[in-house]
């Protein structure tokens, strides 16, 4: 049980700064996900919490105590590695017991903890086997078992599901979530998979190039992305981006080719006459009558998923491709014109230069 506090954490490798001043307060029992593309520094950040990387500047505190100088073994954390890091020559039992043996726990206590963890994870029948005799999913559970028996202050996960096949990944996702809810241990989970981030985290830290670009609940990040990057990273298919401009009075969005979209209520008078990037999520387009439509899409091709239909098309002369997700099955022919409308609360405005969300 612990809260974790990151205060202005920086990391340099040699002369290169790779983590730029990240701050975040993680509450006790919270499941927080660090999400970002490859190379953004998320694993580095996790490893700094674990004590496997040195913190160049800033502080990391666990339960109020600054742990910068503490060795991993003194921080009372447990970690599930991407490749599980199971000791190949030891049985599953010994793998899980190893950390406890080092801490000189009595044998009976070790046995008790290992059997209980094995029961929760349903790996009791594997206790005598060696890792190479297990499947990927089983090994993953052993890796988690190794963490559970330690009863640590914090669970750390480093992309644990990335080596599993799709179906297994879904299953394990649920198990991890359930486990965390039962055990209520503070967890930090690193992934590049936005679905994992959306489904597992109480909150998420979205990282890009060493910066924490947004910190918030999954829904906050989804509905109010702080930058164009976050908006494009979360959500599949990705959000559509169009160059546009705001009218002088802030009541309309003007697209190329003279298309105008109205903005509800008072509009955005503070940002009048500004060049922006307009973002619209694929699922926010609604089919309507030609008279009420504000957008007319030329359809290029279509992907029927069974539950929805993905439509690819372009507006008028503009070559920018838009993706729509319609919640039913449609069989449109090529070059059909689709008449669409978008509610103005689903319009996202980003500053053209800074790519940051405009406050409305």
């Amino acid at each position, binding site marked *: 049980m612990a809260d974790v506090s990151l205060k202005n954490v920086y990391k340099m490798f040699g002369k290169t700064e790779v983590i730029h001043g990240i701050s975040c307060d993680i509450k006790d029992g919270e499941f927080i996900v660090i999400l970002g593309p490859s190379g953004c520094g998320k694993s580095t950040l996790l490893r700094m919490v*674990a*004590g*496997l990387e040195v913190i160049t500047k800033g502080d990391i505190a666990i339960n109020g105590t600054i742990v910068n100088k503490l*060795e*991993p*073994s003194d921080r009372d*954390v*447990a*970690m599930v*590695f*991407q*490749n*599980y*890091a199971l*000791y*190949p*020559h030891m049985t599953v039992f010994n793998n899980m017991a*190893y*950390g406890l043996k*080092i*801490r000189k726990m009595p044998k009976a206590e070790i046995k008790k903890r290992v059997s209980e963890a094995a029961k929760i994870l349903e790996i009791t029948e594997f206790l005598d086997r060696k890792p190479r005799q297990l499947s990927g999913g089983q090994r993953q559970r052993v890796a988690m078992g*190794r963490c559970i028996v*330690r009863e640590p202050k914090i669970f750390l996960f480093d992309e644990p599901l990335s080596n599993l096949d799709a179906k297994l990944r879904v299953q394990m996702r649920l198990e991890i979530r359930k486990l965390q809810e039962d055990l209520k241990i503070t967890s930090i989970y690193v992934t590049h998979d936005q679905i994992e981030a959306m489904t597992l985290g109480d909150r998420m830290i979205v990282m890009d190039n060493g910066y924490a670009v947004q910190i918030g609940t999954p829904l906050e990040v989804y509905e109010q992305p702080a930058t164009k990057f976050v908006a494009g990273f979360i959500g599949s298919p990705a959000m559509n981006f169009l160059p546009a401009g705001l009218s002088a009075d802030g009541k309309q969005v003007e697209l190329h080719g003279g298309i105008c979209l109205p903005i509800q209520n008072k509009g955005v008078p503070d940002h009048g006459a500004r060049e922006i990037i307009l973002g619209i999520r694929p699922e926010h387009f609604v089919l309507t009558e030609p008279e009420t439509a504000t957008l007319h899409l030329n359809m290029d091709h279509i992907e029927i998923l069974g539950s929805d239909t993905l439509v690819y098309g372009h507006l008028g002369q503009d070559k920018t491709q838009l993706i729509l997700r319609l919640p039913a099955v449609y069989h449109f022919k090529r070059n059909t014109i689709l008449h669409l409308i978008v509610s103005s609360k689903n319009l996202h405005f980003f500053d053209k230069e800074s790519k940051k969300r405009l406050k409305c």
Partner: protein
Amino acid sequence: MVEHRPWLTFLTHAILISGMVLLVIPIYVTFVASSHTLEEITSNFSLLPGSHLIENYKSALSVGPRDVGATVGTMMLNSLIMALGITFGKIFISLLAAYAIVYFKFRFRMFFFWLIFITLMLPIEVRILPTYKVAADLKMLDSYSGLIFPLIASATATFLFRQFFMTVPDELCEAVKIDGGGPIRFFFDILLPMSRTSIAALFVILFIYGWNQYLWPLLITTDENYYTLLIGIKRMLDVGEGQAEWQIIMAATILAMIPPVLIVIFMQKQFVKGMTETEK
């Protein structure tokens, strides 16, 4: 092969069998000789085994040859001690050195690395006199330490272990750190067990190397009680005008061949692995 020509298969086997015979004949002849009496050898030598096998070996092991003051048994023991000492010694110090080089950062690390590397280029034969002097100065003549220590620094074993350590996933080391272990624990609980096959392969190669040492024991031992088996055999041949005790010599020779040959045959997999990996 691609074609199926029976005469080609026949030829292949014929060549292989002749090759085998060529390689085996000297050993066979020696074995046969070790089972005859001296008179039988010098007068009318037949290619079939004689009936004095046990007698000759017993005599060699317990009584020993006439002109050498130690028994073949003693000499075999010396060879064994030397071989095992060199083998375990090399493996031990190479494991430690490789571990230091791979898993630690310290000043002079690269300097030490190249220092060890240089020894690859200095086989004992190019430094016999001065090494002898050093051993003499350290009072190592006619002793087991003199037979063993000058031969146990080995760059090949260190590089083999280093190569292996580089392939051990970093995550294992990190998992140990998180589990609460330090470098000593990591070495004994994880690295060492994982190195088992490399150690076995090296054991085979190094034991053969140690057992077959000739030049260095020749120089460093004058006391017959410290003669190794190979040196003893040579002494037995050096009888000048007298009659060489062939039956004892042959028995000793067979005994000299048995341990390494047995190891190669029964640990062939490790032997091959050791050979191919140390030469990289």
